[in-house]
């Protein structure tokens, strides 16, 4: 499947290039732009990023696979990232995880989301949902599914 950056994204890239001493710095910003544009990062997109950043495609690929928030495959279902780290665990994350098992979503067990004071926490589409209870999870999913 072929890939090309949207006009809007090409403009963003051009503006960003002025802010860094090397185009190589644009690797992560470009990976983000691709992921928002296409939903995932295809091999063709990696070639396009390589062209923009002067980083060899294989290296862009290595970078993309290092960071857990980049996806190299299409994701169909609603993605629910649930924090399973200590503060959330102490505040009942296991119950939330168990409850989610019965739902038509993809559950990702993630590490601390920086919301430990409002645990337990999950993140959907870049948004944090805090102080979770089973009832709260129910109403959030009802709205999103």
């Amino acid at each position, binding site marked *: 499947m072929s890939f090309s950056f949207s006009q809007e994204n090409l403009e963003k890239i051009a503006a*960003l290039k002025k*802010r*860094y*001493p*090397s185009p*190589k*710095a*644009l*690797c*992560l*910003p470009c*990976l*983000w732009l691709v992921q928002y544009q296409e939903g995932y990062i295809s091999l063709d997109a990696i070639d396009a990023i390589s062209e923009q*950043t002067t*980083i060899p495609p294989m*290296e862009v690929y*290595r*970078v993309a696979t*290092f*960071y*857990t*928030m*980049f996806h190299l495959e299409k994701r169909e279902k609603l993605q629910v990232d649930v924090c*399973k*780290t*200590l*503060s959330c*665990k*102490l*505040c009942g994350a296991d119950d939330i995880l168990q409850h989610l098992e019965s739902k038509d979503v993809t559950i990702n067990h*993630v*590490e*601390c*989301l*920086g*919301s*430990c*004071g*409002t*645990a337990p926490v999950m*993140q959907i589409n*870049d*948004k*944090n949902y805090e102080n979770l209870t089973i009832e709260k999870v129910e109403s959030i999913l009802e709205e999103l599914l």
Partner: protein
Amino acid sequence: MRECKIVSKKFHLPNSHTLSVARKNGGYEALEKLKEYSPTQIVAIIKASGLRGKGGGGASAGEKWELMPQNSEKPSFLVVNCDESEPGTFKDRQIISYDPHLLIEGIIITCYAIKAKQAYIYIRGEYKEYQDILQGAIDEAYGAGLLNACDITIHRGAGAYICGEKSALLESLEGKRGHPRLKPKQKEPEWYFGNPTLVNNVETIASVPFIVQNGAEAYRAFGTQKSPGTLLFAMSGHINTPGVYEAEFGTNMLEYIEQYGGGVKNGKKLKAVIPGGVSCGVLTAKECEGLTLDYEALRAVGSTLGTGGMIVMDADTSMPEVLKNILEFYHEESCGQCTPCREGSGWSDKIMKRVLDGEGSKEDLEKLFELADTMNGKTICVFAPSISIVLLSFLTKFRKEFEALVL
């Protein structure tokens, strides 16, 4: 315990993230001082204030600033560390969402002092919501002509704890995997594409305007001799009112937990506290008695102050389960460059699983001690030594709980 708000002064105001509210409440007034002081004078004031880095290490900020060349042919850079991924830590997030202009003001002053024209804020990928607030504030600052002398660019990470380590962060900012670099023997700046670079935590930079405006002594009026000033301490876990509450260094830990945290949840007894993010050695309730929150006091009990993000655990908490949870985190987040870390984090996690499943043996516990030894001090960064400290603190202080599982 006296209330002291240096960084969190405006947090409670409605629309505190906007330029107009910031301005009405003293925001950007410290910039006036830049007409009075030269860059080197600003560096001297920061050094005299005793400001210590608030990202976990507590290094002298002034000494780090002094390493930046004042007359370099290469451009200098400021990098603000907003990776905030240490479990139990959620303070920088309060600054960027409740007073982003304080951070921007601090960045403008710091760039002036180190003669940098470009500042990057490296923010963890999971903070998109707060990143948007911060970007809004930066746009407002540009609109008001506040960013004529330096540019601020937000750079978004993508889910890698290790990118909080400053050299890994710079690698990531150069478009690479977040692999920590070998440390130089001598003191020198950090390097970004070969250019001299200063890396400081969000809260460190947000403390700068107060110091520049009020002077080093005003800052030293808070805290202790060796740990001057305040910190956005935080509490989570089994606590009635978790959250972030600024306090001065030297504050009594249990009083802090009682006063701001409302004590342990459900009226239970305190069992243990991890003082500043999971990478600090755990403390028993007894060790917390009389303990003060400053770098020296925590070191004296064999732990560290870290980020000041305390995780509180009640009497019913299973310490082997807590240790397993922390080991999973390390196993997941090791960058994999060093063999003792890559293998040790995985092994210790697997061994603890076996122990918790009731299939462990005494030898397994011995093995954990051995692994702790192997991971200590033989790696590129202090990630692996932190695992050792954590392992040893749990295994020795709560030994009986672990032994009961392998009988």
